[in-house]
């Protein structure tokens, strides 16, 4: 019973799938504003909670700390700095990434929540916490209202 069997082919097994093959995910009320502003104006929006002095990027319709309704949207600009980063050598299936992909959390200033995105146009050795970066967007005609309308962030 406790033998270790390493090779799948040595054991009889059945292949199967879960049958729902796709889902519709909603971007939400605040998400809609964020993606429309990104696509049409090239803006990165946040929503501010005055009571907590905290700006959510991307925006939300409520503050999770005080439950206030958030109605104040603001353009965060394209410039931020790196809070954390990683250099990924393998994808999720275990295949080697060449060149490695670089992910980072980008902060748009004090008392704001960071945004996850990629870094580009950068030497891996030169990345550090605090590195000042700016967003590189797709040309307006190619933008679709998706997070990938931001291509990556690069050092400035």
């Amino acid at each position, binding site marked *: 019973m406790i033998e*270790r069997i390493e090779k799948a082919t040595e054991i009889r097994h059945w292949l199967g799938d879960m049958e729902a093959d796709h889902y519709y995910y909603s971007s939400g009320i605040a998400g809609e504003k964020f993606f429309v502003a990104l696509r049409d104006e090239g803006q990165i929006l946040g929503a501010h909670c005055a009571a907590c002095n905290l700006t959510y990027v991307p925006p939300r319709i409520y503050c999770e700390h005080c439950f206030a309704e958030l109605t104040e949207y603001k353009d965060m600009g394209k410039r931020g700095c790196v809070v954390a980063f990683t250099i990924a050598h393998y994808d999720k*299936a275990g295949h080697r990434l060449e060149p490695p992909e670089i992910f980072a959390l980008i902060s748009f200033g004090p008392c704001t929540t960071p945004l996850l995105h990629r870094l580009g146009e950068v030497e891996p050795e030169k990345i550090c916490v605090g590195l000042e970066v700016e967003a590189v967007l797709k040309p307006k005609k190619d933008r679709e209202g998706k*997070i990938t309308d931001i291509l990556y962030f690069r050092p400035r």
Partner: protein
Amino acid sequence: MDLKKIRKDVAVVGAGMTVFARRLQETGKEMSWEAAKMALDEAGLTLKDIDAVVLGSAPDAFDGVHKKGEWLLDGAGGTNKPFMRVYTGGGTAVFAPIAGWWHVASGMFKRVLVVCEEKMSSVQPHAQSAFAHIWDPILDRPLRPNLVWIFAMEMQRYMHKYNVRYEDIALVAVKNKRNAVGHPCAQLADPTITLDDVINSEPMALPVRRLDISPPSDGASAIVLVSEDVVYEHTDSPVWIEGVGWCLDTTMWTNRDLAFPKFLARAAKMAYEMAGIKNPRKEIDFAEPYDPFDYKELQHLEGLLLADPGEAAIMTREGKTQRDGEFPVCPSGGLLGVGNPIAATLGIKIGEVYWQLARKAGPRQVKKDVRTGVAQAWGDLMQFSAVVVMRRR
């Protein structure tokens, strides 16, 4: 929150655990049964003595079967009994025992079986495929993140903020893989591993290297919990659950303090208050913190308030956290040494604290006399912690 008005004290009287390995042959039910039977045998009980069953297991997507609770029901001994499944990701390993504890502490049940199962080898091509669906579908998934990358960012934030050296973090992997030697269920024990082996292992997502991580596995573990009303029918030296705590941080992982786990500190304070612990560093003798990555052991010791931020790395370098050190940490060998079938790590967290306190840990028994231990697990989208304090009175 009134932590003083618990109705019944609860003790652990048996534990069981299967080998952790890739186990394509057995079903999840069969592994559940194997672990549950071992725990019942150690407690001297049979299934008919059990009033209720709690099952812990991580995402349905691992097995490709929805409603995994009812799917595993019969192997876990839940047929025709009050039964529930709990799931808090990796935190399930300690949270399922907490759910079992409240079944008994409430006074509703006298003898409860808690079974945790995980079979990560079913999902193809890799368990990471299931993890792909834990992310925000609109903000995160289009960027194609994977778990290792996110942990790498957290590890890097921890190192940056508290000035922690990679070499000290890697020593945790060396310690735990060596501690696991002699554990009958271990998948990743290595008696000869060195610091250089870890430092020179392949880069996965820097700073994380292959040997900094505990890979996917299959297995099951179980414990038997009984009320103070009947405990002495089963043992002369019960191991008591003295305090429990749990807490979650925000869903948006980007918005958390990635260097210090505040949610864990809250869970720990809750458990310590219930256990009447005022100075955890003096009153707790050893710890089994969750260690799927080597840096997590350090961060969790700090979140458990057993070290200052950054100090756990120094304790490790000085050898204090070795099995025979002044404060043993992961004497089981942990997830890094024994293996990481998510929820089933109950056996190396709660299970190990129980076996150590009951002096049944065999070759893993810590040398010093231990009376109070703490077990902790971490999970959901890395925002959850559960803490249990156990004691031999």
